[in-house]
């Protein structure tokens, strides 16, 4: 099974990812599934019966507010990065955590780089489905590229200037 970085460790991924074009509710595989946002929105009542074995994924450009009412019940939300230069997913992550209050597994999927792990973590992601070309064990190091930051974010809400003021 596919490896996943989750909460700072390499684990086995027990979720199945359902592509945008392959999803009808009837044809879903057995077990824990991550379904596209459109499928979730259209079949929320039906899919909700399978909770907590259903997660939802969306693209960075999709409006996270569409999940505002669902975050409390969803165990997992995944944000897809179509290309690693598309930074919309960073905003999506922060909005899901900070505005919509999502506290479950927030997973980055798709085409992102090992070198973006630290930024992703700061934007609220705690799980990373990295490209298989990377050695996940070695990639863990990139989560901690930085241990000090100027801005507040999901991992450390207080910007450095407020923390400096506390210690001085």
């Amino acid at each position, binding site marked *: 099974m596919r490896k996943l970085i989750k909460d700072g460790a390499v684990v086995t991924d027990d979720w199945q990812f359902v592509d945008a074009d392959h999803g009808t509710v009837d044809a879903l595989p057995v077990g824990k599934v991550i379904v596209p946002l459109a499928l979730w929105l259209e079949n929320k009542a039906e899919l909700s019966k399978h909770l907590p074995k259903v997660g939802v994924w969306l693209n960075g450009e999709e409006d996270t507010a569409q999940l505002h009412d669902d975050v409390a019940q969803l165990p997992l939300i995944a944000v897809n990065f179509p290309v690693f230069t598309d930074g919309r997913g960073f905003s999506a992550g922060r909005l899901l955590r900070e505005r919509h209050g999502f506290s479950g597994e927030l997973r980055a999927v798709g085409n992102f780089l090992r070198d973006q792990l630290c930024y992703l973590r*700061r934007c609220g992601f705690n799980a990373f489905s990295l490209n298989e070309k990377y050695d996940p064990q070695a990639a863990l190091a990139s989560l901690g590229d930085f*241990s*000090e930051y100027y801005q507040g974010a999901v991992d450390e809400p*207080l910007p450095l200037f407020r923390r400096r003021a506390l210690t001085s």
Partner: protein
Amino acid sequence: MYVYDEHDHKILSERVAQFRGQVDRYLEGEISDEEFLPLRLQNGLYIQRLAPMLRIAVPYGMLTSVQLRKLASIARDYDKGYCHVSTRQNIQFNWPSLEDVPDILAELATVQMHAIQTSGNCIRNTTTDQFAGIAPDEIVDPRPYCEIIRQWSTFHPEFAFLPRKFKIAVTASLDDRAAVQVHDIGLQIVKNDAGTVGFRVLVGGGLGRTPVIGSVIREFLPEEDLLTYLDAILRIYNQFGRRDNKFKARIKILVRAMGPEVFAEKVEEEWQHIKNSPARLTGEEIDRAKSFFTAPPYRQIDDAAVSAALQKHTDEELAFSRWLNRNVQPHKVPGYAAVTLSLKPAGVSPGDITDKQLELLADLADQYSFGEVRTTHEQNIVLGDVAKSDLYDLWKVLKPAGFATPNIGTLTDIICCPGGDYCSLANAKSIPVAEAIQRHFNDLDYLYDLGDLDLNISGCMNACGHHHVGHIGVLGVDKKGEEFYQIQLGGNAGEHSSLGNVLGPSFGRDEVTDVVQKIVDVYVQSRNPDEQFIDTYRRIGIDPFKERVYAKAD
């Protein structure tokens, strides 16, 4: 000058280690060229025509003598003995090797310098007025706010992969020397009726292929709200800026497509969610930032007496008088002046400076200007705090060093990108054009008679040489593999910013100087007494220039 504490040092040393690892993994083949591109760009590293180019950040243009000496040693040890001041106040090395870059960064870190976010689709170095903190006409010193923005923008986790590059400039005087109207965000420091300091916020200005003057989206933003409001603008841009076409990805295109009013509403709406978050600035933090930019220990100088003494020198030496007129600018403290060192003598690429010059500059800064200098977006260097009683001695040293060309603000103080000699994006060379113009217009009296005249040259439409806002703009274009130059007239970068209009069909390189001469002739013949070039142009329009330049030689 801002001084790093242990937190700043930690962030910078972690960055050096991170980039060293990335270079290793790239050289080992784990990172592909395509993946390495944004990583190296966010560290200022371009792959150029002949060698990599490394752009070093000079936050808001401030450098200490210690930093100058480090730049000199890097120029000598890793480059060919010189570097280049860019049009965004940064320093560029043209000949480092990729393998050496991690070591160069480690050396820079020892003097609190780096190349963070000097390129790539992220928030770039924040620029400001080169006379910040000393200009008689400023409302407050803009540098503390620039430093606050520097910290906020450095490794901002949400905004490192924007649709396109993002540039912020801050000015605190009406005579806008930071060109805030042609930046992605321009911040103009103002005081409201109650005397409270805040920002007038402009967005969507820019040069490049589609030059646009920025739109005001907020007349007054209280200073504590600076960062949360910037976060709101960037978040709207990150989410809605175009990503399908690189040439339509700048925020100016988004602002234009939405309309400034709608864009402003979206920002306001986003801001309401975050304006009271912990990112809101505190008075304490603003005071802390200000504490690094206090006045140096100025001496009590009798301005009248020292002016009289200068008068004696100017009466005796025309060359000193010329330099005093063009290269020395007013200072808010009586008895002091700002001195602009011209990096535009004929025969030197505009903005280039050698290792020996950097070291001399460091010594002069220590001796005459409290150990600090400023780079300017016109690609010169300023000694900001020179006692007027030292001006004559300083001039004597500057002259043989090649720093005293008395051409600041004149036609030969040309803003010029590196162009086709170095840059792989360029359509045409720009340095030889600048040099030919500088050699042709070598009569100083004639130059002074022409007055303030900005001539800006870009080697391609990316507009690094700011040709759109030159009174005379020269743009290198490629026609079937040959280099041609389009001329624009009527641009302006100051308080009344405007974009130039194309004069007509382009010219070969050997024709450009002659065309500039004809344009200048039309101005001289048409001007009213004391009328500057830009004002004459605005009065008479482009047609008289067109007629003269394109007249048939019969």
